[in-house]
C-alpha cells in the first residue's frame, strides 16, 4: 500500500496545485475567494481522509464505505454511493452508501446496459469509462426514470466517476449535491483523482488477496508434504551433488540419532563404513550420471549401531540444483522374518528326520519282539504250555499296540506336515461303507454286539478319496465297538445331505449304545492322546490318536465329523462328506491342497 499511497498523494498534490493556480488567475472578490478557499480546504481535507481510509481499511468494502462517509461528511455532498457491477444482472449493485439522500439508492435500480435505467449518468459513465456530470437532473431527460426520487430527496446535480479493476470498468462512484454548481472543474478534477486512487486500491487489494490465497495454498502444500515425508515408514532425504543435505524426514533423524543441526554438517557417506562406503559412493555417482540406482547397505547411526537398509536414489532438479532424492527401507524386519522362516523350515526338516529315525529305530527291536513271539506261538522251536502261550500273546499284543502307535504318530505328523497325498476319484460310497463295516463286524460279534448296516438300495457315487474315507469309517466303527459293552452298533448312510450350506454331501452315521461322552469332554475328543477316561484306557486299547487322525483326514476330504452323545446312553459319530459335483469337486480339491 505504501508506494501506491505515495503516488496517490503526489498526484493529488499536483492536482491541488493546479486548482490553486487557477484560483489565483481568476481574481475573484475577496468574499467569493474566501468561500472557494473554504470549499477547497474541505475537499482537501476530504481527500486526505480518503487516503487515510486507503491506508487503514482492511478490506475493499470497508474502504468503499469510508470513502462514501468522508465525501458526505467532509466534502459536503448530499449523498454518495458506490455501485459494483454485477455482470449477470448488468446492474450496479450498491456496495456502500452515505448521506441523508442515500435512502434514494435503495429505491432505484441502475443498470449498465442501454435500457432506460441504464441511461442515467451512472450507466453512461460505466459504458464510456469517463466521468459524467449532470448540473440539473430535473432537466436531464435521461434521468427521468428516477424523477420522483430526485425530487423527493432534493437532489439537483450529480457527478459519476468510473471505477476500474485491472484497467476494466467495474463500478461507479456516484456523488449527488443539492446545488447545480457543486461540480465545477476543480471539484471534478479532485473527485476524478479519488476515483483513480480507488481503482488503484482495488488492484492492490486484489493482488494482496491473490497473494495471500497463494500463500495459504503453498503453506497447506508444505504442511502436507511434511506430513507425508514424516509418516513414510522409511528414511527420505535430498542432497546435492556436493553431498549437502537439503531435506530429510523425521524418520531419518530418529533412526540415525543425529539432530537437524548436525544433519546440515554431515555428508551422505558419513552414514556408512567399511566396504559399504565405496559401494555407496559408486551408486551415488550412478544416480547423478544415469538417473537412478539402488543399493543394500548397513546404515550407521550416531551411536555406532548398524541397521540393514535398502536405498533407492533418483536424480531430480530441485531449487535450481541437481539433487539426489533418496529413500531407505529398514530390512531388519524382513531379515528377521527370513531368518525365522529358515529356522521353521529347518525345524520342520528336523522333525521329519526325527520322526523317520524314531520310526526306524523302534521298528528294528519290534521286529524281534513280534517276530520271535510269533515264531514261538507257531511252536516252531517246540510246544508251549498254556501259561507260556498266554504270556507270549501278551508280549505280542503289546508289541502290536506299540506298532500301531508308531504308525498313528507318523500318520498324524504327515497329515499335519501336509505330506499326505489325497486321491480324487469317483467311487461308490455304499460299497466303501460296506467294506469298512465288514472289517469291523468280527470285532463286534466277538463282543456279542448287534451290528447293523443300513444302506440305500443302489450305488451312491461320490468323488473323494476312497481309502481315506474307509480309514475314517473303520476308525469310527472300531471306536463304537470298543466303547460299547452291550447293545449294538449301527451304521447308516443318508443321501441328499449338506456338508455346509450349498455343499451337497452324504451323511454316514455310526450309532452305538455305549458308555457315551460327557458334554464337557466333547471339545477334547479330537485332540491327540486324549482317551477321555484314563481308567478305560486299559480296557479299551487304542493309541488315543484315532479320532484326531479321523478329524484331520475328514478336513482333508472337505468333510466334517459331528458328535452327539449322552453318558450311559450311547454316541453318534456322523461323517458328512461332499459328494463332489462339478462345482463342489473343485472346492473339495482346493481344500485338499490346502
Amino acid at each position, binding site marked *: 500500500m505504501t508506494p501506491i499511497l505515495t503516488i496517490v498523494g503526489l498526484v493529488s498534490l499536483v492536482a491541488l496545485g493546479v486548482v490553486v493556480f487557477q484560483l489565483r488567475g481568476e481574481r475573484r472578490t475577496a468574499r467569493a475567494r474566501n468561500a472557494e478557499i473554504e470549499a477547497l480546504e474541505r475537499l482537501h481535507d476530504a481527500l486526505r481522509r480518503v487516503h487515510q481510509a486507503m491506508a487503514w481499511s482492511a478490506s475493499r468494502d470497508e474502504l468503499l464505505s469510508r470513502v462514501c462517509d468522508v465525501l458526505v461528511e467532509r466534502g459536503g455532498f448530499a449523498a454518495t454511493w458506490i455501485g459494483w457491477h454485477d455482470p449477470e444482472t448488468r446492474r450496479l449493485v450498491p456496495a456502500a452508501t452515505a448521506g441523508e439522500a442515500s435512502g434514494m439508492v435503495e429505491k432505484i435500480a441502475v443498470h449498465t446496459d442501454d435500457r432506460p435505467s441504464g441511461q442515467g449518468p451512472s450507466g453512461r459513465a460505466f459504458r464510456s469509462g469517463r466521468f459524467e456530470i449532470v448540473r440539473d437532473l430535473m432537466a436531464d431527460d435521461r434521468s427521468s426514470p428516477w424523477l420522483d426520487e430526485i425530487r423527493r430527496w432534493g437532489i439537483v446535480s450529480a457527478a459519476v466517476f468510473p471505477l476500474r479493476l485491472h484497467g476494466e470498468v467495474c463500478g461507479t462512484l456516484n456523488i449527488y449535491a443539492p446545488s447545480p454548481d457543486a461540480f465545477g472543474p476543480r471539484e471534478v478534477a479532485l473527485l476524478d483523482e479519488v476515483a483513480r486512487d480507488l481503482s488503484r486500491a482495488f488492484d492492490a487489494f486484489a493482488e494482496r488477496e491473490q497473494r495471500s490465497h497463494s500463500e495459504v495454498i503453498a503453506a497447506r502444500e508444505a504442511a502436507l508434504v511434511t506430513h507425508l515425508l514424516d509418516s513414510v515408514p522409511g528414511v527420505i532425504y535430498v542432497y546435492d551433488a556436493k553431498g549437502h543435505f537439503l531435506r530429510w524426514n523425521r524418520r531419518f533423524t530418529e533412526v540415525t540419532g543425529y539432530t537437524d543441526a548436525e544433519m546440515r554438517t554431515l555428508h551422505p557417506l558419513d552414514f556408512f563404513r567399511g566396504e559399504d562406503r565405496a559401494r555407496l559412493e559408486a551408486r551415488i555417482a550412478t544416480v547423478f550420471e544415469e538417473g537412478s540406482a539402488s543399493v543394500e547397505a548397513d546404515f550407521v547411526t550416531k551411536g555406532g549401531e548398524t541397521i540393514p537398509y535398502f536405498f533407492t536414489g533418483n536424480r531430480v532438479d530441485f531449487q535450481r540444483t541437481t539433487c539426489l532424492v533418496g529413500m531407505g527401507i529398514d530390512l531388519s524386519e524382513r531379515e528377521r522374518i527370513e531368518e525365522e522362516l529358515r529356522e521353521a523350515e529347518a525345524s520342520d526338516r528336523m522333525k521329519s528326520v526325527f520322526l523317520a529315525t524314531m520310526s526306524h529305530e523302534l*521298528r528294528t*527291536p*519290534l521286529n*524281534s519282539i*513280534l*517276530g520271535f513271539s*510269533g515264531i514261538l506261538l507257531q511252536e*516252531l522251536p517246540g510246544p508251549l504250555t498254556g501259561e507260556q502261550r498266554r504270556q507270549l500273546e501278551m508280549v505280542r499284543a503289546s508289541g502290536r499296540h506299540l506298532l500301531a502307535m508308531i504308525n498313528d504318530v507318523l500318520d498324524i505328523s504327515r497329515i499335519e506336515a501336509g505330506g499326505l497325498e489325497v486321491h480324487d476319484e469317483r467311487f461308490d460310497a455304499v460299497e466303501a461303507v460296506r467294506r469298512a463295516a465288514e472289517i469291523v463286524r468280527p470285532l463286534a460279534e466277538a463282543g456279542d454286539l448287534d451290528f447293523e448296516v443300513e444302506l440305500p438300495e443302489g450305488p451312491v457315487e461320490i468323488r473323494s478319496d476312497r481309502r481315506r474315507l474307509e480309514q475314517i469309517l473303520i476308525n469310527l466303527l472300531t471306536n463304537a465297538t470298543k466303547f460299547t459293552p452291550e447293545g449294538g452298533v449301527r451304521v447308516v448312510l443318508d443321501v441328499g445331505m449338506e456338508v455346509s450350506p450349498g455343499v451337497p454331501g452324504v451323511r454316514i452315521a455310526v450309532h452305538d449304545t455305549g458308555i457315551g461322552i460327557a458334554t464337557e469332554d466333547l471339545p477334547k475328543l479330537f485332540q491327540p492322546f486324549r482317551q477321555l477316561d484314563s481308567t478305560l484306557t486299559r480296557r479299551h486299547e487304542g493309541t488315543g490318536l484315532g479320532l484326531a487322525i479321523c478329524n484331520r483326514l475328514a478336513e482333508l476330504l472337505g468333510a466334517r465329523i459331528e458328535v452327539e452323545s449322552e453318558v450311559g446312553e450311547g454316541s453318534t459319530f456322523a461323517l458328512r462328506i461332499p459328494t463332489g459335483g462339478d462345482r463342489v469337486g473343485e472346492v473339495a480339491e482346493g481344500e485338499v491342497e490346502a
Partner: protein
Amino acid sequence: MNAAAETAPVLVIEDDEQNRYLVVYLLERHGYRVRAASTAAEGIRLAEEELPSMILLDIQLPEVDGYAAVRALRAIDAFRDLPVVAITAHALPADRARALEAGCTAWLRKPIEPDSFLDTLRELGLGPPPEDGR
C-alpha cells in the same frame, strides 16, 4: 549233499544280529537253505559265489547301504532278474518308492509278520523248499 548243492540258497543281507537270526531261522525252519551276510560287500560276494534264488535285503547297512547294494547287483548280468526283496524299518511311502527305484523287486516293512512271511515271499517268487531240506 547233492540235492543241497544243486539247490540255490536264499541270501539274507542284514546287519542287525537279531533280525538276521529271525529271518534265517524262519526260512530254515521251513526247509530252505540260507546264506547270510551282515554287510553289502559280503552279501554281493556271497551272491556271486552261491547264485541265490532270492535275496532279502536290509536297507540300512553299514558303509554301503541297501540301495547301493541292489544297484550293484543289478549291474551284474546274472542278477538282473533275481528277486531282491527289501525288508526294512524305513517304513515311509517315500522309502518304498526309493527302494523300488533302486531296483528292488518288492518292499516289505519291519516288523515282519511271521505267520504270513513265507507266503508273502512265495508270492514274490520264492520257490518251494528242497525236498530233503529238513
